[in-house]
């Protein structure tokens, strides 16, 4: 147990180091934008008819702490970011966590739902595809997997919109109906949300499903040709019993490990799918911040949160695998890191 805790602790340290590197990257990106927060805010005020001088800018800079050295400001930003506080948006002058709050949760919810759907489809179908010798099934799956790459989610979204508009006269976009858009969360709002969220969930899960299918199938094919499967077969096991009890368990490890990357892939498409389907959540906010309002604080916070979610998921899967997989468990308890 002590060994297991030590393993979990090392993993946690690695995760935090990764996040620190990412935060440094994101923070440097935010800083590299020409003109700092004070300048841009006051330039905006100028357009509103207020006349501001150089001194005002300097005073504002001191108020925002922009006169501090770069590294110190990074430390400040990071220590805030780890407890979920990202300061104020440069342009909007509202707390970023307030601005993002529920929107980020909605995004994360949609993305995780997409991930779950992807694996709910990919695992059984992939196992079946690996077991069957039916060439039609195999070729069809191969084609779908390739299409998962060639038809990226946003193109799929566009095509679905095209079909929906032409045949149903409704573009199926948006996350909430009009009456619920600004209402507080309630059961009715949730039902309304669910009735609309299935499309983004399906579209976001699309390429993850295609890739997961390929992974599951390849892993199962690898495992099936191994001797222990032959041995089990020789003992008279067959069909589902054989597949689920032996090769499927072995293939589980790499599949769980690939979850993080699939989430990454889903996040990747989030902003663009959000634009096409006019979703009002963090992905759209990110695009808004970057393309229109040039609000680097907000954009940085979103990118950091997305990455933190992935790192968190990676940490959880690592630890869960160490707890579940006897091979990993042994190597962890034996003191060797896998």
């Amino acid at each position, binding site marked *: 147990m002590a060994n297991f805790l030590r393993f979990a602790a090392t993993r946690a340290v690695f995760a935090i180091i990764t996040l620190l590197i990412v935060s440094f990257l994101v923070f440097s990106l935010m800083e590299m934008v020409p003109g700092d927060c004070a300048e841009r805010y006051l330039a905006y005020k100028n357009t509103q008819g207020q006349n501001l001088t150089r001194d005002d800018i300097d005073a504002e800079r001191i108020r925002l702490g922009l006169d501090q050295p770069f590294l110190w400001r990074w430390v400040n930003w990071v220590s805030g970011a780890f407890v979920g506080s990202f300061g104020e948006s440069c342009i909007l002058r509202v707390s970023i966590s307030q601005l993002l709050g529920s929107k980020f949760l909605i995004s994360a919810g949609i993305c995780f739902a997409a991930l779950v759907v992807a694996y709910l489809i990919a695992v059984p179908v992939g196992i079946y595809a690996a077991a069957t010798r039916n060439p039609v099934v195999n070729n069809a799956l191969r084609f779908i997997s390739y299409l998962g790459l060639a038809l990226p989610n946003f193109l799929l979204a566009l095509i679905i919109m095209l079909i929906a508009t*032409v045949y149903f006269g409704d573009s199926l976009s948006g996350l909430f109906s009009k009456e619920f858009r600004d209402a507080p969360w309630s059961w009715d709002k949730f039902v309304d949300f669910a009735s609309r969220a299935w499309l983004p969930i399906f579209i976001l899960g699309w390429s993850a499903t295609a890739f997961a299918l390929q992974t599951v199938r390849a892993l199962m094919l690898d495992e099936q040709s191994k001797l222990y499967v032959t041995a089990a077969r020789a003992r008279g096991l067959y069909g589902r019993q054989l597949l689920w009890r032996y090769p499927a368990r072995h293939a589980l490890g790499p599949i769980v490990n690939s979850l993080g990357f699939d989430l990454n892939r889903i996040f990747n498409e989030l*902003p663009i799918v959000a634009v096409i389907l006019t979703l009002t959540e963090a992905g759209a906010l990110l695009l808004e911040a970057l393309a229109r309002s040039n609000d680097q604080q907000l954009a940085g916070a979103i990118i950091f949160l997305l990455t933190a979610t*992935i790192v968190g998921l990676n940490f959880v899967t690592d630890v869960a695998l160490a707890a579940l997989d006897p091979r990993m468990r042994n190597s962890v308890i034996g003191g060797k890191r896998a």
Partner: protein
Amino acid sequence: MTEISQSAKEAYFTASQGQLIWARFRKQTGAMVAAIILGILILMGLFADFVAPYDPNLAGANQDYTNGAPQIPRFCDDAGCSARPFIYGVKRERSLATNFRWVTTVDTEDRRYVQFLVRGDRYQWFGVTLDRHLFGVDEGKIHLFGTDDLGKDIFSRTFHAIRTSLAVGTLGVVISFVMALTIGGIAGFYGGWIDGVLQMITDAIRTVPAIPLFMALAAFIPDTWTAEMRFFFISIILGLVGWPTLARRVRTHLLVERNQDYVLAAKLSGAGSGHIIRRHLLPSFTSYIIVDLVISFPYMVLSETALSFIGLGLKDPVTSLGVLLQNTTQADVLLNYQWYFIPVLFFVALVMAFVFVGDGLRDAADPYGEHGK
């Protein structure tokens, strides 16, 4: 009989690596078909100026046929058949009768015959100004895939877009390749703490979702930059973000290979590091790297498309698929002008072809693949 198998064996054992890969690649029907399609698309992209009947930008726009439907050449109609395909002429008018809106009518009396190797818009090709195009019509203009809201020919734009995407992809792949080779090479060759630190950075960059990162970087481009500058900057961004996966592979491969017996043997024979890297280590994974490059190509193309689509990437007058798709989410386009989506088919074909060829190459480059089957 034995004679033949003997010579076949001899051919097998004396063949170079390239010949072996080609022999194995040729056996895969899917990959071969994809390779042919890919070849055709690349050629059409390279010679886009010649294949496309008109200039892809405003210079080639047909003001009399904006948002025009695709014109499909036909051989026969009610008035009889002709050996030379033709399209109908269109008239555009605005009057009291049409409620002062521009209305385009097809005039089935007015046949316009398709001609080949016609003179048209001028273009630069290796410094030579040419004006020959593969096809055109004797009078007016032909728009196989229709036109957009400014009358720009979507057929011409599609092939120019393929060229742009190939160019962006190539530049991005080259940049990420150089970075991957350098960083992965350093990590793999030195190992130890240098490797540890580099791996940590590589992994951290790999965790950040790429497209949001692209978006953040692309937001730096000032509005005053020209389309060409944007083009180079976007390619550089794609390369700068795309290297970690390949770097990791190079590093892992080097870490394994540098402890192999053949490297030790070379060392014992007195070969220097440079000689070992050039003559032994590099050839041991060139084929893998080529495969990786082919596989990473479609990702570059897709990322560029995504960026341009949301307006952070390339912009007119540079034509890329993302640029072509920029306006397609408008209800007007979705309902009335579905031909805006024709370029999508070409891009799906292009990416699919790359993926199939990459997969085929991967199987072909694997020297152990044959024994397993």
